[in-house]
Each structure stands twice: as C-alpha cells, then as structure tokens.
C-alpha cells in the first residue's frame, strides 16, 4: 500500500473533493479568458493588461493559480502513486516516487511564484 503522507490533504476523500472543486473553478476561468479573447479578435497589449489588472480578474487569477496548484498536485500524485510502485520500479520505488514528486513540487512552486508575481505586479 502507498502511504498517503504526500497526498495534499492526507485524506483521499478531501483530495477527491478538492480536485473536483478546483476543476470547476478552472473551467469557469478558462471560459472567461477564452471569451475575452473571442470578443477581442484584434488583441493589443493595453486591452489585455487592463483586463487582467481589473480587481475581479486579479482575484479570479489568484484563485486560479491556487486551484491549479491543488488540482495538478493531486492529479500528478494520483498518477505517480499508480505507476511508480514496487511492481514496476523494484525495491527503490519509494525513492523514485519521491524524486518524481519533488520534481512536480518544484515545477508547481515555480508556476505559483511566477504567476502570482506576474498578476500582482500589473
């Protein structure tokens, strides 16, 4: 059995709910941004910036960054624990899984810091 110390909430059920709530939020955000690009076929820098700098969008973007982090961590964790286990990876599977999870965490950390500083400095 896989120990769940690295799962986001240490509870499969909470992870399940969080992954679904974040999925809904991400869908709404995607629709907002796609809609904005569709109503502005001739996009320019000022229009784009004004949109993302508006308070509602700033809050929504921030929520989206956090949702992505939660959703992607839970998702990548699920995939990792499905495949990186003893049957495929042998005796040192825990080591490999921790390296994989460390890699995922690092990438997510870069995304979160980068995206938050981008949106909040507009």
């Amino acid at each position, binding site marked *: 059995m896989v120990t769940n110390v690295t799962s986001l909430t240490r509870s499969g059920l909470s992870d399940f709910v969080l992954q679904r709530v974040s999925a809904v939020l991400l*869908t709404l955000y995607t629709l907002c941004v796609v809609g904005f690009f569709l109503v502005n076929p001739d996009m320019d*820098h000022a229009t784009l910036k004004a949109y993302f700098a508006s308070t509602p969008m700033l809050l929504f973007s921030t929520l989206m960054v956090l949702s992505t982090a939660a959703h*992607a961590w839970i998702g990548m964790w699920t*995939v990792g624990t499905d495949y990186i286990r003893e049957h495929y990876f042998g005796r040192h599977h825990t080591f490999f899984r921790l390296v994989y999870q460390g890699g995922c965490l690092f990438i997510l950390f870069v*995304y979160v810091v980068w995206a938050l500083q*981008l949106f909040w400095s507009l």
Partner: protein
Amino acid sequence: MREKERPVFISVSPFTFSFPFTALASIAHRITGVLLFLGIGYLLWLLSLALESEAGFAQAAAILAAPFAKIVLWVVLSMLIYHILAGVKHLLLDFHIGDTFEAATAATYAVVGLSVVLALITGAWIW
C-alpha cells in the same frame, strides 16, 4: 470438460488486448492531464510576455508567428479542451448523472466528437 473450467488468462497489454473506446478515452484524460502540467507553463510564459509591456506583447506575437510555436499552442489548447470536456463528463458521472452503461458510452462519443470539432475551430483560429 475440465479444460473449460480452467481460468482464462487475459493479458492486458496494449499489444495483445484491444481496449474499448471508453477505456482509451479515459487514459487520454490522464495523458492530457499530465501533459497539461507542462503545457500550462507554455501558456503562462506567453501570457507573461504579452502582459509585461508593449515590446513583450510584440515579442509574444512574433514567437507565435512561427509554425512550430503555433503547433505547440494548438496541441496544448486541444488537450485542454479534451481534458475539460472529459473532466466535466467525469464530474457528472461522480454525481451519478448519466452513469448507466449506455448513457456513459454515448457521452464518451459526444465528448470525443465535440473535442475534435472544437480543436479544429481552435486550429482555424490560430492560423
């Protein structure tokens, strides 16, 4: 007679076992999810350039003028479309909406069909 009672070994490997359409659609949701983990980095990079300054916006536009950059953008957006549609179907099934065998199979075809249509429209929009 005894021969027939022996358990049958089914090797579930892509080479010996033909997966049902719904199983392929399911694994595709997983594959798109994992690739999106990297793909959103590409979207974030382009967005950060475009938001940075007028020059950055022009730079992002110049990058996207290259065919390869367009292809990558199209692939990422198409995967996002599929992941969202299959994800919404997944959420509905979680709420036991349409979770009979027939309805879920039909929904899978609808998700794949709609994804293809939207991916084509996205492609037309990018080029």
